[in-house]
């Protein structure tokens, strides 16, 4: 009996162990496994290994809001236009684009293209997708990208109806869109993922088609199809043979691993597990930038984005223009870029980045790092505030928690202390909290970055057209608003650019923000990778990428 009991007990233990081991999952046969065979044999297969930082927050083009999702969407879907490697729109799903005299009506003729399930891509698919995105019930964060279309804003904010949105499928192959104002960058917009079509037949039957990227209902019309998705682990894209331009797609397989840590991604790249590092998929670890610069592999491209500190002009201290001016001038942008951000960013001189047409040459709205001028402004400001010494200024600098933001903030904080004698306190909070704080206007000086969705100055200037929304400065100016409204109606490109430049000058003369730098896109890639570079918006079109064995 005891003998039996004893054996029984050890058997039980064994059973527990075995079942524990059986439950083990080392993920040996998961999709990412194929990543290893990439560099090896086979001149038939062309594959590339990339990494992104997390699961895409959405697989629905209309719900995507981030570069991670966007990079995948651009491969699996295709809009009316697609940006070429230089960032210029070229016809894609649209074979022909006809614009009316007043530049308000666009008529698209679609080419014969197929969804990955064989259905033809129709004008109805576009109409369906755009109206779906605008439907407030679907809560698309980026629906505002469609506001250029007549009736779109009203429908999205619950004041209009779907029928009033001026997008119509005239027939299967003809799509007609009417805009509120002349929009010179509309061709660019139609390349943006919010404007992508959705297979309306499938989507009407299965409203949840996008929640299972591995399911048979997940259908795209882009150069690649989504082969497999393993949460937190990998996404595998395969070439879409039924894509209309399949002959010009070189890659057969794209392996995308989810690697959250920059340091890990860097090591994987150094070990040859990844072929590309950088925007828009992930970020190159700051610590490696010097190394990549030295061996000449770092690719730097200007990006349509501005890193800035916003001043809350409703704050007791920050309402003073001279204080804002002093703080803005005193920032040593060159030193910051050279030593801290290291990415060959351009010193921020204004609101609109240098990638924009007509804004290529920086305008000196203020002298950067001119300590004398800054002190002068500071003295004036202090006097206006009735203070005698800079140390009496109580200023707090807010930023969202991140090592990069912290480093920049510490650099600038120290500069303000040494050059102006202002001891600024630091206040960091998590992203979700930070956004609420900015919205509520609880900040004095706050970090902010704006990356353009399309390469037009309006994308930046519009933020400060009115209070609310993304205007975290609470600054408004009637003249400025008027200029923007006028520019929206202007059809002459030159005159329009001038108006926008005038608006920026008004903006910068009152210092509601301290521009710090204009973003650059940094990337490195393996020698064998060809044609892989990002456009000014930071997108990489995998469609054009090739591998040379």
């Amino acid at each position: 009996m005891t003998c039996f009991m004893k054996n029984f007990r050890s058997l039980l233990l064994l059973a527990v162990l075995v079942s524990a081991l059986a439950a083990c999952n080392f993920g040996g046969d998961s999709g990412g496994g194929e990543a290893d065979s990439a560099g090896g044999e086979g001149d038939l297969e062309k594959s590339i290994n990339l990494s992104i930082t997390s699961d895409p927050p959405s697989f629905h083009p209309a719900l995507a809001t981030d570069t991670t999702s966007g990079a995948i969407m651009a491969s699996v879907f295709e809009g009316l236009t697609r940006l070429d490697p230089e960032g210029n729109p070229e016809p894609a799903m649209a074979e022909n684009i006809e614009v009316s005299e007043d530049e308000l009506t666009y008529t698209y003729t679609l080419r014969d293209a197929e969804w990955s399930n064989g259905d033809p891509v129709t004008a109805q698919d576009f109409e369906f997708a755009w109206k779906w995105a605008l439907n407030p019930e679907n809560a698309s964060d980026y629906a505002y990208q469609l506001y250029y279309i007549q009736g779109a804003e009203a429908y999205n904010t619950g004041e209009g109806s779907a029928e009033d949105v001026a997008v119509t499928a005239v027939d299967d192959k003809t799509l007609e869109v009417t805009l509120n104002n002349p929009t010179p960058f509309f061709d660019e917009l139609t390349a943006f993922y919010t404007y992508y079509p959705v297979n309306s037949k499938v989507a009407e039957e299965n409203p949840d088609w996008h929640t299972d990227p591995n399911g048979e209902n997940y259908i795209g019309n882009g150069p690649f199809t989504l082969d497999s998705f393993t949460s937190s682990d990998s996404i595998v894209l395969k070439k879409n043979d039924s894509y209309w331009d399949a002959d010009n797609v070189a890659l057969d397989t794209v392996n995308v691993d989810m690697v959250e840590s920059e340091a890990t991604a860097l090591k994987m790249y150094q070990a040859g597990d990844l072929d590309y590092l950088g925007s828009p998929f992930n970020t190159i670890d700051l610590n490696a930038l010097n190394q990549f610069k030295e061996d000449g592999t770092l690719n730097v491209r200007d990006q349509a984005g501005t890193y800035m500190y916003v001043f809350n002009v409703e704050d007791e201290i920050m309402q003073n223009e001279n204080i804002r001016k002093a703080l803005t001038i005193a920032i040593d942008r060159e030193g910051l870029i050279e030593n801290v951000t290291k990415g060959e960013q351009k010193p921020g001189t204004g609101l609109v980045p240098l990638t924009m047409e007509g804004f290529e040459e920086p305008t000196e709205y203020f002298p950067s790092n001119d300590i004398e001028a800054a002190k002068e402004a500071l003295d004036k400001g202090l006097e206006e505030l009735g203070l005698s010494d800079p140390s009496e200024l109580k200023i707090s600098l807010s930023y969202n928690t991140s090592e990069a933001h912290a480093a920049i903030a510490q650099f600038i904080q120290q500069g303000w202390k040494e050059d102006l004698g202002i001891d600024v306190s630091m206040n960091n909070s998590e992203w979700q909290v930070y956004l609420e704080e900015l919205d509520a206007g609880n900040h004095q000086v706050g970090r902010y970055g704006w990356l353009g969705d399309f390469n037009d100055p309006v994308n930046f200037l519009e933020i400060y057209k009115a209070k609310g929304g993304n205007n975290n400065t609470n600054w408004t100016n009637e003249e400025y608003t008027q200029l923007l409204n006028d520019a929206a109606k202007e059809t002459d490109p030159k005159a329009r650019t001038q108006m926008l430049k005038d608006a920026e000058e008004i903006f910068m003369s009152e210092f509601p923000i301290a521009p710090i730098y204009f973003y650059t896109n940094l990337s490195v890639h393996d020698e064998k990778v060809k044609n892989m570079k990002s456009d000014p918006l930071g997108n990489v079109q995998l469609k054009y990428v090739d591998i040379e064995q």
Partner: protein
Amino acid sequence: MADKNVSELQPSDFEIVGNKTSETETLARKSISFWGEVSRRFIKNKLALIGFITLAIIIIGAICGPWISEFTYRQQNGDYNMAPNGTYWFGTDDLGRDIFTRVWIGARISIFIGFAAAIIDLIIGVAWGAVAGLTGGRTDEIMMRIADILTAIPYLLVVIILLVVMQPGLFPMIIALSLTGWVNMARITRSEILKLKNQEYVLAARTLGANNLHLIKRHLLPNALGAILVTMTLTIPTAIFTEAFLSYLGLGVPAPLASWGTMANDGYPALANAPWRLFFPGVLICLTIFAFNAVGDGLRDALDPKLRK
């Protein structure tokens, strides 16, 4: 067996002089006091002594280090990521700050956090564990279950709320660390008390009418001291660690202040190009924790009556 060589003895040797019991008593009483004995045994323990000296050096460094250095912890000197040299003894970081200075400022903060958290844990944990262990029954059950539940509540949520309610800084950090940190101490104390409370001398004291407070103070705590001390020497590293983890999540002490946790966190991605940024805070964390462990073990051995021979 008998010794034959006794002839040289004089008859006068056999004079009866009586006993000297008083001498034996004084001899017996001459034994050293309890704490004297403990410290003597502690000093004889080489490892413990080394630990103690290490700790002393680190604390002296924390006090004097920033004061010796010609730089301040937040001063950016324009020399970025410099290897250790004559000017910057421990090198500089990515903002050109002197790591020597920062490491000792960090020592102040990390050791303070560690000690403060350990002391709060000690007070709450010992009180909670002692009451639970001594009362027993339902009360014990309920008290320990409360402790169980506390450990299951998402810790980060609590920390985030604390950091928002109070301004980020040392104080909320210490509270956050102590919030669940005491549970372990309570468990250890309780199990020690349970072990001790049925022992004869405690029962004897009880029959003599000692009340609970007296029992805890006089009999139980001194005997549970060894286990409590060891737990405490482990609490301090845990606190330093948790602080490092919170720094990893960006919830550490606010910049530009430094703690070892934030420094290690900033330094580890630079392992390839500026290893000194991880090395110095890392080595100091290791040394400190080694020292606490050695001192704790030494104290335990010195206090443990069973090892007294």
